[in-house]
């Protein structure tokens, strides 16, 4: 048994009402490390090609990494995955909190949920005792309400992941919520749980997680914590979390505003981390073992609403604040609460709402579609109403619940240009017409337009905001580094914001597992995983290739109207040039398909054998 792991895989087949455990295979650990690696390997091997993501053959996976739950900064991250109901390709979402420590203490590295239950249920994992319970009384309840009820019933020391009404109704941007405000937000994984009629997963564990060299771990972990404590930005992160990004993003003209028309929101100071702290924040809230406590727990009150919510984080402030032009942080926080309680991703949610408002302004959607509501940028009631309509699939919400790409295809009449997405996943919170490496990051991210695998805005500021030259190499470097944290099961923020070097994580990995991998060995595995997720797209999406890496036409057709990046555009030729360079450096064909040589080099020859 390799230390640092829960050592078992828990498999729950809902159709057969059967629970089994398997030992986590050693070669899986050595070749794919954990979390993200475990998920794509399992999906590629176990899913039949072409399955319906919401059908009985689909699987939902929740997985931890070797560093999850361990004594080192911010080790509270886990990954969820499946074939995405939103994109039809590789679906994966990252979530912080306390779940992965609990799952490993219960003795499991990963839960695989298969089949479909005939009636609503929730899963209870209490160390070795695993059972399915009836969720009839919880069905239709909100995510946060459900978590509260289950904690009251099972005990506060259970860690719980839930879906809301949106997941139950198979809304394709449905998320999974955990720890009263953390979400596995992206790619619609909440709908997979909804299709299986799983309302919640509740976990409690009591076992110690074995460590190869305890003193060695303590030594490196103390060094990592010390780097956080002594970083000049430490206090800023503790006070404002990701909220401090808001002002900066506006100053550089990268803040998504009015459906990504602009990179500058004139009311941004109302949404700043400082103002948020003053108006709504109650306490700082942290994930497991995290010193930075970027979670801001808030109480928002205004007019007829009064709600508690974790956040808003930068992404929510960007996508619901700037992108829907809400200039009052209390409204953004309340919209955040509605998304959390109904169980929809605030990034896709904010983007789709902005898309709908722009379509309404252009007459593509009318009051007949919205149930009589006049959609307007800057109108909180438009946003609140659309969140409900999407989550409950009412009126135009039924179409918008399919995601902006499918909604645009259906609406037609030029709507596709206003669907700010790549591969069917809505773009997260950075306007990128004058941030080409960031644009390329969105184009090539392996789940669709998300910033987690590569975030490169500072690289653009340093190396030129209008040139495609040299961007591909940086994006590839980031795509091998950042997802490594999602594979090890930790948060990347101590690395990127506090200066904890990757070499410390490699050392912690060696101390925990006893596996003698260097930093380069870890990057090699990261590249293997990246290519395997690409091959999943190739296998699952007919005709997949270069066209799926292109951004919305707004990038090269519409100039930024105002703000620091006014006049900015990124020409089509430059987009294509970046892609050419990216594919070449990756060892992929001109259509973006990994070559046989590249796959064999990465130990993925088995993919070619089918």
């Amino acid at each position, binding site marked *: 048994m390799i230390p640092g792991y829960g050592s078992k895989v828990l498999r729950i087949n809902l159709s057969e009402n059967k629970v089994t455990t398997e030992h986590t295979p050693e070669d899986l650990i050595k070749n794919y490390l954990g979390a993200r690696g475990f998920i794509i390997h399992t999906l590629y091997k176990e899913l039949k090609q072409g399955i319906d993501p919401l059908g009985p053959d689909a699987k939902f996976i929740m997985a931890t990494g070797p560093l999850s739950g361990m004594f080192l900064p911010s080790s509270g991250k886990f990954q969820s995955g499946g074939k995405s109901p939103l994109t039809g390709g590789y679906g994966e979402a990252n979530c912080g909190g306390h779940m992965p420590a609990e799952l490993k203490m219960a003795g499991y590295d990963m839960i695989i949920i298969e089949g479909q239950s005939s009636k609503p249920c929730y899963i209870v994992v209490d160390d070795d005792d695993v059972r399915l319970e009836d969720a009839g009384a919880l069905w239709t309840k909100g995510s946060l309400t459900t978590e509260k009820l289950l904690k009251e019933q099972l005990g506060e020391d259970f860690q719980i992941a839930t879906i809301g009404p949106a997941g139950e109704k198979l809304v394709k941007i449905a998320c999974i919520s955990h720890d009263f405000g953390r979400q596995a937000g992206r790619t619609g994984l909440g709908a997979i749980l909804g299709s299986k009629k799983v309302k919640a997963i509740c976990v409690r564990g009591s076992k110690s997680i074995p*460590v190869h060299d305890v003193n060695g771990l303590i030594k490196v972990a103390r060094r990592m914590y010390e780097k956080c404590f002594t970083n000049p930005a430490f206090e800023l992160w503790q006070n404002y979390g990701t909220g401090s990004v808001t002002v900066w993003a506006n100053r550089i003209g990268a803040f998504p505003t009015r459906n990504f028309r602009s990179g500058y929101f004139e009311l941004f100071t109302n949404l700043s981390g400082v103002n948020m702290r003053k108006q709504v924040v109650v306490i*700082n809230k942290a994930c497991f073992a995290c010193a930075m406590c970027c979670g801001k727990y808030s109480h928002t009150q205004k007019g007829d609403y009064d709600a508690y919510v974790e956040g808003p984080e930068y992404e929510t402030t960007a996508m619901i604040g700037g992108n829907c032009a809400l200039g009052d942080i209390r409204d953004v926080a309340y919209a955040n609460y509605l998304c959390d309680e109904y169980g929809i991703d605030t990034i896709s949610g904010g983007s789709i709402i902005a898309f709908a408002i722009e379509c309404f302004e252009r007459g593509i959607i009318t009051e007949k579609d919205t149930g009589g509501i006049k959609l307007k940028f800057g109108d909180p009631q438009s946003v609140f109403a659309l969140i409900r309509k999407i989550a409950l699939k009412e009126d135009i919400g039924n179409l918008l619940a399919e995601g902006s790409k499918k909604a645009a295809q259906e609406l037609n009449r030029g709507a596709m240009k206003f669907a700010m997405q790549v591969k069917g996943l809505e773009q997260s919170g950075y306007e990128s017409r004058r941030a080409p490496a960031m644009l390329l990051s969105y184009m090539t991210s392996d789940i669709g337009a998300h910033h987690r695998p590569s975030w490169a805005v500072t690289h653009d500021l340093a190396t030129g905001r209008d040139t495609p030259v040299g961007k591909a190499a940086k994006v590839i470097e980031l795509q091998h580094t950042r997802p490594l944290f999602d594979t090890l099961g930790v948060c990347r923020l101590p690395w990127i914001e506090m200066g904890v070097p990757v070499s410390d994580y490699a050392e912690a990995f060696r101390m925990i597992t006893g596996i003698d991998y260097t930093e380069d060995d870890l990057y090699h595995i990261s590249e293997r995983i990246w290519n395997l997720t690409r091959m999943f797209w190739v296998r699952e999406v007919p005709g997949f290739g270069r066209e799926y890496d292109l951004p919305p036409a707004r990038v090269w057709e519409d100039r930024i109207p105002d703000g620091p990046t006014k006049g900015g555009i990124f020409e089509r030729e430059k987009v294509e040039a970046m892609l050419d360079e990216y594919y070449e450096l990756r060892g992929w064909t001109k259509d973006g398909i990994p070559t046989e040589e590249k796959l064999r080099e990465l130990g993925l020859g088995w993919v070619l054998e089918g």
Partner: protein
Amino acid sequence: MKIGKEESRCTGCRTCQLVCALHHFGENNPKKAAIGIKGEFPSPGRYRISLCTQCEKCIDACPEGAIAKADGIIRIDPEKCTYCLVCVDSCPFGAIFTHRDFKVPFICDVCGECVEICPTKALFWKT
């Protein structure tokens, strides 16, 4: 010296529990910590810290005379303890803990590891 707490600063990160268990048992397991953290969510949104205040109620309550204070620190004598858990019930702060691996409850020995690591100074030395 005693350990003080300021609950409004607690973020629920449980790093204190991790170092506590590592220091006393050499194990990565926050469930073996002599300090408790409990969330109260969604409202009012706060964490409660259970921490021994050296109040000595457990000493009076123990029917076996197994708990005593030496050098200002409360300790349980494992030879005398019968695991009746009367002390756990008697503690007004919920600060006496158990784990199924052990047949003796455990109490904070004021080693201060948690104070040293607490990232928000929710735990501190009180003189």
